[in-house]
């Protein structure tokens, strides 16, 4: 599998070119520091030096100014919404997708509507949801729900449809009922794709949330970076971006751990 090959590859490469990589990484920060703090090529409110950014990031954990919330409050506000919309989308989307993949009739009934809605990017739902639910938590959770549910439906249905006929025949030969086949053959073999869909949705959800918070919010990481921009606090903008990236990466990692625990036979392909 590609992922495994990549890992092996990286481990080998890491040792070999570790030093050059380290130099490159260091020079990234050194150049950043030189252009901003030493040569002052950019105005500090346009492009602050890394030390200022780092200080701003640390300070944000206990200082509420200028946007009225500490970093953890913002993270929590965003995380709560993201997980809420994401969980709802997954809980509804995956079963619908499984039904679509399993039953041809359901597939033919749902797919046309689905094709109609899917090309609309999640961001484009924001205004409609804001009209419906007002500038509150519900609107943003709804945007995330929409973006999650479409990907979950799509991947679950493809995953179920890709179940190998031979496996189904074996189960049939041993007298498995249709329901038994669904739960013990089709769903387990669709799990890797379902998780791929969850992963994609998680990234999309996190990104859409940030965008939604930039447009209308009073808390959250998207609000933090948008507000800091208006206050010309670029150091806080970058600090917020770092936090958005970090939380996104942690969410991805957690999902990966869940996948490793749930999906069996991942390495047997």
């Amino acid at each position, binding site marked *: 599998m590609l992922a495994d090959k990549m890992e092996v590859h990286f481990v080998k490469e890491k040792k070999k070119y570790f030093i*050059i990589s380290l130099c*490159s990484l260091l020079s990234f920060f050194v150049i950043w520091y030189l252009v901003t703090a030493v040569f002052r090529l950019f105005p500090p409110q*346009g492009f602050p030096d890394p030390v200022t950014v780092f200080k701003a990031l640390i300070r944000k954990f206990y200082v509420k100014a200028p946007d009225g919330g500490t970093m953890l409050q913002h993270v929590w506000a965003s995380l709560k919404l993201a997980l809420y919309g994401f969980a709802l989308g997954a809980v509804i989307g995956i079963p619908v997708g499984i039904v679509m993949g399993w039953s041809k009739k359901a597939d033919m*009934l749902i797919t046309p509507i689905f094709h109609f809605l899917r090309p609309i990017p999640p961001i484009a739902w924001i*205004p409609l949801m804001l009209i*419906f639910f007002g500038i509150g938590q519900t609107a943003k959770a709804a945007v995330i729900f929409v973006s999650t549910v479409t990907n979950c439906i799509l991947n679950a249905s493809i995953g179920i449809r890709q179940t190998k006929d031979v496996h189904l025949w074996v189960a049939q030969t041993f007298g498995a009922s249709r329901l038994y086949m669904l739960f013990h053959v089709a769903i387990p073999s669709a799990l890797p794709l379902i998780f791929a869909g969850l992963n994609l949705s998680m990234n999309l959800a996190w990104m859409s949330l940030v965008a939604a918070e930039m447009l209308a919010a009073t808390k959250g990481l998207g609000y933090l*970076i948008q507000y*800091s921009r208006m206050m010309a606090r670029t150091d806080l903008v970058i600090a917020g*971006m770092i936090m958005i990236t970090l939380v996104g990466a942690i969410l991805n990692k957690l999902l990966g751990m869940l996948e490793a625990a749930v999906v069996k036979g991942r390495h047997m392909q």
Partner: protein
Amino acid sequence: MKSKNPLLKSKIEPWVYGTISVAIFLFIWYLVSLSDRIGTFFPNPFIVIKQFFLSFTNKIGRDTMPVHILYSLRRVGTGYLLGVLIGIPLGLIMACSKLGRAIFMPCFSIVRPIPGLAWIPLAIIWFGLGEKSKYFLICMTALVGITIQTYYGALFVDKTLIGAGKMLGANKVQLFFNVIIPGAFPNIFAGLQGSFAGAWCAVIAAEMIRSDQGTGWIIFNGMNYANTAQVLVGMLAIGLVGFIIAELLKALERRLCRWNIQGK
């Protein structure tokens, strides 16, 4: 035993189901829009469809719908092209040269996990509220996906093919142009398709944040005036354009990677 294999053909034609499902969808929408509470700000589907066609001649804001779409397309086209022009060479360099990988990979790994839309405030600070910041944002969104796909595509070109090329006496340059690039092409194309969706998403977001025209502006402006019909018309246009371009890219892939599809 009566087999109910899902792969068995159903007797009723698919289009019958399709019509039924769309009809139900529109009917529910219509019913919802009839109710007093929601109907005031939620127009029925026929109004939306009518308005959509009217928008091709009647102006929304300053321009008609085709002009708005052209604005969005110009933005996404420029930013996306920039992303492609940077992303493909960057991916190829990182895949083919170990020195290049050691130099660029760490910096790329910093940029890679940043969600595309999180660049918006920084783009505005650096490039102002005009077109340049939109190009930057779209470029950053498209760049990451294209680079990753190109990188893995070129890195995992079938080793047998490379070996065969070497055995037949190809030098490094020949190997690069005649084996690695064609071998990586399907993956590169997957990257191009995947990042287009992201770029289209980014242009909508950029136009919502600050703009005077474009499809993203249509829905945001509609929201500000609580004009749901305009929002829905804009969403319809966004969905349609995104769909058409995705289909065009797929058709292009079928044409360019015909050998790959036949091989499978």
